[in-house]
């Protein structure tokens, strides 16, 4: 499986290429010289400890924070473009903490996200029947899981070249984590995904490639399985001890069991 992924990565040009990316927030450097590529299929995980700059990297890619360096989407340089143009050129963004508009209804949240001439309302309704029933409800009154569905649905409404999904399972109940993972797996059949995820089980379940950040830099790239099976690497870069068993087992824990609640992954 991983060999095919690698094979594809060398044959087909990557959908996203980041090179020498630097980013600042209020003058503080938060991303330093980060380089990696995301293949045109499957899910690539962006891993690292808390505060290492994963979310900032995602935000820098779409220009939500000041950045410099090379960002190439499907062969086009986008690092100088305005955020809304980058998104329109085919990026679906699912932010950390959902960021639904709490004073807008579910239907309004979705309508706001429609940018294709023919948004895929049907698909979204099939994936999230729950949202249809709650379309007149204020998004702020939804549960965390439901808000995550809205956030995912906003990205899935349009045809994208890539999805940037930032910690979709954060703070969700185990059952919902499973649902989110299923949705992502489903979505990944048609669109490549760059996924920031703390839950290593979800990573093992979904991701083919992995990019690991430490201290604002990339310290490891390769197939996700190789990384997850190397307890030493995990310990070093994520600060998680896996002495309860080999990392392979860790990746095979029952669905929805967060590895370690609040762990500094």
């Amino acid at each position: 499986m991983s060999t095919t992924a690698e094979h594809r990565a060398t044959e087909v040009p990557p959908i996203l290429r980041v090179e020498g990316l630097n980013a600042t927030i209020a003058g503080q450097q938060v991303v330093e010289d980060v380089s990696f590529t995301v293949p045109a299929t499957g899910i690539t995980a962006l891993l690292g400890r808390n505060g290492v700059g994963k979310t900032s990297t995602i935000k820098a890619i779409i220009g939500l924070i000041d950045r410099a360096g090379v960002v190439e989407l499907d062969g086009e340089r986008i690092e100088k473009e305005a955020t809304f143009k980058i998104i329109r050129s085919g990026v679906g963004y699912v932010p950390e903490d959902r960021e639904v508009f709490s004073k807008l209804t579910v239907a309004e949240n979705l309508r706001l996200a429609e940018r294709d001439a023919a948004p895929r309302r049907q698909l979204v309704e099939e994936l999230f029947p729950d949202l249809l029933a709650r379309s007149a409800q204020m998004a702020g009154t939804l549960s965390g899981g439901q808000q995550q569905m809205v956030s995912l649905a906003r990205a899935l409404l349009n045809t994208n070249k890539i999805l940037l999904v930032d910690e979709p399972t954060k703070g969700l109940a185990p059952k919902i984590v499973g649902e989110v993972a299923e949705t992502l797996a489903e979505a990944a059949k048609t669109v490549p995904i760059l996924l920031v995820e703390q839950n290593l089980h979800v990573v093992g379940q979904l991701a083919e490639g992995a990019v690991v950040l430490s201290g604002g830099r990339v310290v490891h790239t390769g197939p996700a399985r190789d990384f997850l099976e190397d307890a030493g690497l995990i310990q070093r870069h994520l600060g998680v001890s896996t002495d309860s068993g080999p990392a392979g087992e860790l990746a095979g824990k029952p669905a929805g069991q967060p590895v370690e609640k609040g762990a500094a992954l």
Partner: protein
Amino acid sequence: MSTVVLLMFTGLGLGALYFLVAAGLSLIYGLMGVLNFAHGAFLTLGAFAGWEIARRAGSDNWGTFLLSLVIGAAAGAAFAAFTEFVLIRRLYQRHIEQVLVTVGLALAAVALFDGIWGTDPVFIQGPAWFKDTTEILGARIPNDRFVCIVAAVMVLLALVFFLKKTRYGMIIRAGVENRSMVTALGIDVRKAFTLVFTIGGAAAGLGGVLASHYFGYVSPMLGGSLLIFAFIVTVIGGLGSLTGAAIAAVAVAVLQQFANFYLGGTGDFVVVLALALVLLFRPTGLLGRTS
């Protein structure tokens, strides 16, 4: 009793003017984080534009009055759109510099109005009906109060309709809540900025024409004096909240009128006191965001 009713309606009329200024201020601040000191100049320009029309077309008929409202609103809107497009946009995300630019614009605009129309108040007349009074519960209420109230209510309804029912209204509401997420959905939020400025300028321009009838004159200082109370209204109402601005506008104006009458002309002072109390107990304003 009749005094209370009279004060009530006079307060409502004044509150209507406050609202017309505060609505734009509050939306602009809510969406863009810009404190617009030039908003008073939008109002003054609208008032003078309306007066110029009335002067040319004969001031005592309804047609002219309605036309002056349209022209006043258009003048305010055009000035506001120009401000956003030429000055504010260059300083995107630099909120304090945006404030400074609007301060400079207010200075320059008022000085220019001084130069064009003179510093003395220009007296203005509307349709004869404005000067009549209508008796409600024994109080004889000048009719121009009703005009202000009706106009402000219509503007409020139109704004609510626009915000609730149109796509741009939706973008503005979403932008007030979380601007960067709106751009992250692929929406060019700058269009909404120009739009909000234009709408705010139109409301202020309309308010200018109405204010000139309410007070009976136009002067280059007209906007500046209303602006300060509109600031108080937006802070009390909660920055970014249209409903808050409406409630606070009425509350502030009515309070001001009653204090002026019953507490020996201390209306302005009582309003500032009210502001202090709101800040002490609810710093985000009546309907403000709690973040």
